[in-house]
């Protein structure tokens, strides 16, 4: 059964279909909120919150074909709400001093050694956390979740050109950051 079939089955009263939907969504949503929030425990909580909200709202979903963006919208709203209730994670402008502070001086002084000592996830997570939230969301949705540019625009309720320009700014920032820290694909693949 497709996602839309399961949603339609749920709307017809087959509550068990939601179990199958959670199985489908859980890996995607967990990894989405993990990269958004940067913390495994928080990601697990946010995924739970997402499914609770989805359960309440699923019967009102008018177009099951768009459920892939709909569930990300819910996850993003849950993440943003959670962010408002705790002290906001500071974001930093991408300049050399702030990068050093965000990644740790050891990354700059011994990039190879540190990259091999540390988890790749940790390194890239901290790189993503240096980005402004609106840019972090689009790069996660595009690069890791594989949403189409149009789907991201719909999920964020912005124009597709806004999505493209945010993505380009993200890549400019990350390119500068990776060059500064001598982080290359080969280095991370070796570590992985």
């Amino acid at each position, binding site marked *: 059964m497709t996602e839309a079939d399961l949603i339609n089955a749920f709307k017809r009263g087959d509550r068990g279909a*939601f179990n199958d939907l959670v199985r489908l969504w859980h890996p995607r949503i967990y*990894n989405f909120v993990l990269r958004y929030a940067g913390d*495994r425990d928080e990601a697990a909580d946010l995924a739970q919150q997402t499914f*609770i909200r989805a359960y*309440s709202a699923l019967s009102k979903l008018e177009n099951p074909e768009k459920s892939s963006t709909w569930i990300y919208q819910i996850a993003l709203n849950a993440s943003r709400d959670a962010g408002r209730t705790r002290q906001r994670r500071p974001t930093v402008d991408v300049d050399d001093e702030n990068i050093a502070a965000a990644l740790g001086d050891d990354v700059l002084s011994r990039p190879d050694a540190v990259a091999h000592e540390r988890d790749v*996830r940790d390194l890239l997570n901290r790189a993503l956390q240096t980005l402004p939230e609106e840019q972090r969301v689009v790069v996660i949705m595009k690069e890791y979740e594989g949403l189409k540019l149009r789907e991201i625009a719909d999920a964020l309720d912005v124009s597709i050109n806004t999505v493209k*320009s945010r993505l*380009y700014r993200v890549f400019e920032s990350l390119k500068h950051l990776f060059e500064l820290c001598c982080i290359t*694909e080969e280095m991370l693949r070796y570590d992985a």
Partner: protein
Amino acid sequence: MTPDERNAQLITYIYGELDEHERQEMEAFLATNGEARRSLEELRRTLAVLGAWEDETPPFGLTFVPEDAAAGARRPVAWWWASGLGVAIAAVLVLAFLRIDVTMSGGTMTVRMNWAEDTPVTASFDSVLTENRFVRYQEAYLELTQDLIEASELRQRAAMIEFARVLEARREEDLRQIGQGVRNVGQIAERSYLQSGVLLTRWAQTRPSRRK
């Protein structure tokens, strides 16, 4: 095309979302523009670094949903759903009393008992639970816990009674043996006393008189 428009097109191109006409235009542009090619290559390198962060397997977790949200569903939950969870709860309950190793992965709980290490027991159950149902399961859990505690107390009480009975029997046996021992010692002492008297009498009779 402005620089911003070109950058936006590069993003669309690299993700393969240009239509055929736009793609051909972009490739013609790239063929004649070294700066654009460098930008594209840098984008690819940045994406390759980001791609090193692979997806993780999420931890298993129950999702608790409000009962009123579930009210819209017309059909009741399937019986196997509840019974599957009941099996899981019962298995967890047993853990409170027995030393059992439990692992959980992807909705499947594996129970490995210390006396049967080669035969793990598995139980699968779904991850969505309504609040009211959760409360009912909690109540059932508490009842089962109480029953197990009472059963345990009864067993302990029976064991104590049996222990006391054995102890009393042992004590009576010990007392009987002590009494028997005392009687034996008395009889021996009495015999020794009588023998001593006989010997003394004989000695007195055979002893020459000093007065003579």
